[in-house]
């Protein structure tokens, strides 16, 4: 059986396509004599390309920003101009150009004179809000900023840092993943050099997998997501690794309480390229004392990157990541999981207006658990092959196109159970492998309609084909879950037959048109209004009914029983720079709906479950909120205040299965709903020697379900519960402090060292990670037990650069 499904077309697809064609038309009608200047912007110190640098013809509104590979292209009428290039933390570059012919201009920017000290960052000109581009809802942090934020045990953490920005939360300390604008953890597309990362956490979520030493640029798209991204409903976290110093050999590293890091980079291929190798390993023995002598817990990461310039128009990049977590709890069980990714890219510049990149990407996530006492050896993994071809066409000063195609082939192994030894009472068991192909084609256009009005139109077409070989059950009336009217519960249906799908045979196909639209209207020199709409289709679902995802959770592709998640998001924002760009304000409102959100019936068994369809019902989710971000960008004191007022809910009616639905079909708060989320992050430079940092965080407590009674049954007192997530944990708040000491003697030597002293949760707030209800084993009396993860945690880290 093959089915093709079309999901709620966005009004009329035809009309939409027509609209795009009309909008694209202007490009074919321009006829003035114009010339193009193009090139690559780099850092003079290490040859790293600079992403997102602002390139402008002074005195005009003609400008652009460099792309992911540092490339820019500007087209303007013949004339004499001053080309200015500015970038965070760098001295603005200016050069007069006579645009009477097409020209190539590669530029190397110098770090600000005031910033000889490597680790000190004072935000500069280009950190002010970009008023002109329609792109909104982007959270951007530089690695330097991330490195300054006080963190648990001094372990620099990209994902924890991002949570200090508005619209981003997580399920709590020690919880993996993050939530963007009320979206679920599985709705974030996490890309490391374009490779999909399926689990971004180490030690079950205490730390994230990204080693800041290897990272160049981090961007989180919370809304207004460009057409080139697809496959996740809520956000895109686009992380780019450093290319490696192409000027000189350099060693950086650090010794911390949890892990040590070492990175080497330098030129290679006779200055035609460079390399970067960065490693990080946690000390297993930190945990020895805690779990007894046989227990170990540790993780490591390895980031690799190299690039080679074939000629002026062609460059190759090869990058890879490998990371793993290992646990051994006194021989009771051993557990390991990790990500592996590799990416080969080829940049080709066709001409000064047309840039292309081809990527071949592989990524994989695997999980292993051994429980000797039960005789169990459990493994699961997900891997994918991904091909992308992306083009950027800088048509004119008013029009910039990007378009491309990509295809991903997935292989899911949801689980394989083996007896660990001959004595094991376990029978070997293999859950069905699953296969799928996801393809996308997109076109986007940035159109400067007038000096004040710029629009971005995009359209993505996505296609998903769930493939055999697999045998799937059939259920009466096609209902894997049925409502038991008499007992008022949802139950698993018994299969009535099954269908064999042959190898490569299509089980179900889906396709979606995903329009993206953004507009910016500049009110005056200092402020602008922006609006955006995006539709996103998500074909993979993380099957998890715990408060936060665990490394054990498996991904399930859409197919015969699960439809793709479809998100629609509307956002409106006001942006303003003031006091000569010393301060900026970003205020945004958003409204998001998600269709086909999977929810779990009461008592769902998800682990080692071959027929996930009998455990779930499909519902919808919605989220809305207001975000406010005020940043101070210049001076000895920099930082930001962020506040989010939001709501995130879901609802799962019974639908065809009958009954009212989960939670009686009523809307209920999602686990990551936070009414108020406030954070302050500041960095103060006292002098060349000392710098101080602080975070203050306040959040409404996580929604939880408290018991509304107890009853005695079989000699036990049991809590009874009613509505899901109707109560809340106590409010979450904490203060973190850090001090960085840069010895004065650094100045005159090659070895650069610094000490970072940190205190996490300085006033030792016992924040509740969870509150559980149960009978005291010794007294039989009911009690509520609060679990707190981190009290006050001091730390010291030493970083060096050579």
């Amino acid at each position, binding site marked *: 059986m093959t089915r093709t499904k079309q999901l709620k077309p966005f009004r009329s697809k035809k009309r939409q396509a027509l609209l795009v064609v009309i909008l694209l038309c202007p490009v074919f009608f321009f006829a003035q004599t114009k010339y193009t200047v193009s090139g690559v912007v780099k850092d003079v110190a290490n040859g790293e390309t600079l992403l997102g640098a602002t390139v402008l013809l002074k005195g005009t509104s003609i400008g652009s920003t460099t792309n992911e590979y540092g490339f820019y292209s500007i087209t303007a009428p013949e004339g004499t101009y001053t080309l200015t290039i500015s970038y965070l933390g760098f001295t603005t570059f200016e050069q007069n150009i006579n645009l009477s012919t097409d020209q190539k201009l590669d530029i190397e920017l110098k770090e600000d004179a005031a910033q000889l000290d490597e680790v000190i960052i004072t935000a500069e000109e280009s950190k002010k809000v970009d008023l002109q581009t329609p792109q909104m809802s982007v959270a951007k942090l530089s690695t330097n900023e991330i490195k300054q934020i006080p963190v648990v045990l001094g372990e620099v953490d990209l994902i924890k840092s991002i949570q200090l920005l508005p619209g981003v939360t997580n399920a*709590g300390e020690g919880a993996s993943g993050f939530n963007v604008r009320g979206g679920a953890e599985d709705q974030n597309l996490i890309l490391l050099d374009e490779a999909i990362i399926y689990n971004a956490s180490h030690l079950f979520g205490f730390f994230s997998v990204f080693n800041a030493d290897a990272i160049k640029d981090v961007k989180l798209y919370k809304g207004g997501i460009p057409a080139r991204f697809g496959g996740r409903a809520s956000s895109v976290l686009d992380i780019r690794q450093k290319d490696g110093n192409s000027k000189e050999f350099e060693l950086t590293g650090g010794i911390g309480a949890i892990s040590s890091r070492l990175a080497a980079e330098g030129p290679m291929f006779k200055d035609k390229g460079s390399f970067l190798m960065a490693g990080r390993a946690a000390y297993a023995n930190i945990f020895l004392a*805690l779990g007894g*002598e046989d*227990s170990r817990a540790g993780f490591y990461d390895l980031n690799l990157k190299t690039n080679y310039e074939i000629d002026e128009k062609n460059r190759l990049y090869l990058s890879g990541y490998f990371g793993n977590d290992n646990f051994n*709890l*006194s021989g*009771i*069980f051993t557990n390991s999981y990790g990500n592996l990714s590799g990416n080969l890219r080829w940049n080709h510049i066709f001409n000064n207006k047309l840039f292309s990149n081809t990527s071949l990407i592989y990524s994989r996530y695997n999980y292993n*658990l051994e*429980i000797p006492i039960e005789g169990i050896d459990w493994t699961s993994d997900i891997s994918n092959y991904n091909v992308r071809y992306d083009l950027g066409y800088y048509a004119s000063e008013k029009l910039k196109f990007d378009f491309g195609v990509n295809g991903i082939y997935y292989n899911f192994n949801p689980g394989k159970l083996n007896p660990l030894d001959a004595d094991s*009472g*376990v*029978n070997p068991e293999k859950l069905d492998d699953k296969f799928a192909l996801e393809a996308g084609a997109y076109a986007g256009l940035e159109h400067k309609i007038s000096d004040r009005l710029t629009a971005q139109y995009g359209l993505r077409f996505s296609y998903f084909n769930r493939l055999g070989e697999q045998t799937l059950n059939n259920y009466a009336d096609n209902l894997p879950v049925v409502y038991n009217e008499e*007992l*008022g*519960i949802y*139950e698993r249906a018994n299969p009535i037959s099954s269908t064999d799908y042959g190898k490569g045979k299509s089980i179900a196909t889906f396709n979606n048109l995903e329009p993206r639209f953004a507009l910016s209207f500049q009110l005056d020199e200092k402020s602008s209004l922006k609006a955006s709409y995006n539709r996103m289709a998500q074909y993979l679902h993380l099957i998890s009914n*715990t*408060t*936060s995802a665990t490394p*054990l959770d498996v991904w399930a592709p859409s197919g015969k029983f699960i439809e793709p998640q479809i998100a629609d998001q509307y956002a409106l924002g006001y942006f303003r720079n003031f006091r000569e760009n010393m301060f900026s304000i970003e205020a945004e409102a958003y409204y998001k709906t998600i269709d086909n959100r999977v929810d779990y019936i009461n*008592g769902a068994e998800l*682990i*080692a479950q071959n027929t996930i369809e009998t455990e779930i019902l499909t519902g919808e989710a919605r989220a809305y909120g207001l975000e406010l971000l005020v940043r101070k960008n210049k001076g000895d004191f920099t930082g930001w205040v962020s506040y989010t007022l939001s709501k995130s809910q879901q609802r799962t009616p019974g639908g065809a299965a009958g009954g009212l639905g989960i939670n009686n079909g009523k809307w209920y708060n999602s*686990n990551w709903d936070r009414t108020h989320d406030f954070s302050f992050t500041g960095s103060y430079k006292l002098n060349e020697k000392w710098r101080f940092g602080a975070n203050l965080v306040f959040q409404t407590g996580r929604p939880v379900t408290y018991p509304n*009674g*107890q*009853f*005695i*049954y*079989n*000699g*036990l007192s*049991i*809590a*009874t*519960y*009613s509505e*899901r*997530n109707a109560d809340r944990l106590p409010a979450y708040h904490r203060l973190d402090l850090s001090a960085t000491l840069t010895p004065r003697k650094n100045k005159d030597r090659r070895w650069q060292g610094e000490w970072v002293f940190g205190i996490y949760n300085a006033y030792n707030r*016992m924040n509740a*990670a*969870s*509150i*559980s*209800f*149960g*009978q005291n*084993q010794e007294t*039989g009396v*009911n*009690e*509520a*037990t*609060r*679990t*707190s*993860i*981190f*009290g006050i945690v001091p730390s010291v880290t030493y970083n060096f650069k050579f």
Partner: protein
Amino acid sequence: MKNINFYTRLGSLLTLIGLLNSCTKVIDVDVPNGGARLVVDASINWQKDTSGETQTIHLRESTSYFNSNPDVPVIGASVTVTKENDGSTFVFDDQNNGSYTATDFVPELNASYTLEILYNGNSYTATETLIAAPDINRIVQTIEGSDDDKEIQLQLFFDDPGAVENYYLGEFIPSNLPIPSLAVISDEFTDGNENFIENDNENYVAGATVAINLYGISQRYYDYLNIFIQQSGSDENGPFPTTPVQLKGNCTNINDPNEEVLGFFRLGEFDTTSYTIEQQ
């Protein structure tokens, strides 16, 4: 995964790593009160090689969660159980303390029985099948964990019949503790093999005796107990708790199907043994 609680394992690990500092504390919490509801604690337990003619059913009312007197008996109800294959009805007499007892009960494996309760003008009913239990092979005592974090673990071994889905309940009643422990498993991954149900308890001490019962149970009761045990608080869910849900049993009010009736009516054969914890 049925008899293997992965989350518990992960949970204990996390508690271990969270740990440089993590801590648990008993606190005061304001909880909602959903009002008193009828609780049907109706387990027909038939010990192997006995007549099983004396059976007791308990009816109570639920209370607010932190009420220190949770045992609120329901008196004055009429309780009967009907054996469906021959229509015989057994009357459970009101003992005026929330207990209702029959002395002429006839248990029969795989027979279907219907419970009927008349109370306050409402009629409550539930139907279940009496499920067979295997023999207990042996009890094995092991140690879980090491050093400071040791727990005594008991494993209850029995043979699972092959080629049929089975569900089991193990009940462990220690002499030195006020409450029993329950554990359920299915044979999904261990069909036809010698299976075991494990029970670990940090409060087990040498010399204490543990009464151990092994029941055969229905799939529906297994599903119920699975949630019941998870939500009883005896299970450390650690930082990966599932959202607790309403625990719906199999008893319904015919006059008002929306009324929440707590508890379960079930029938099971059981094998029993007693084990004395040894010095490790």
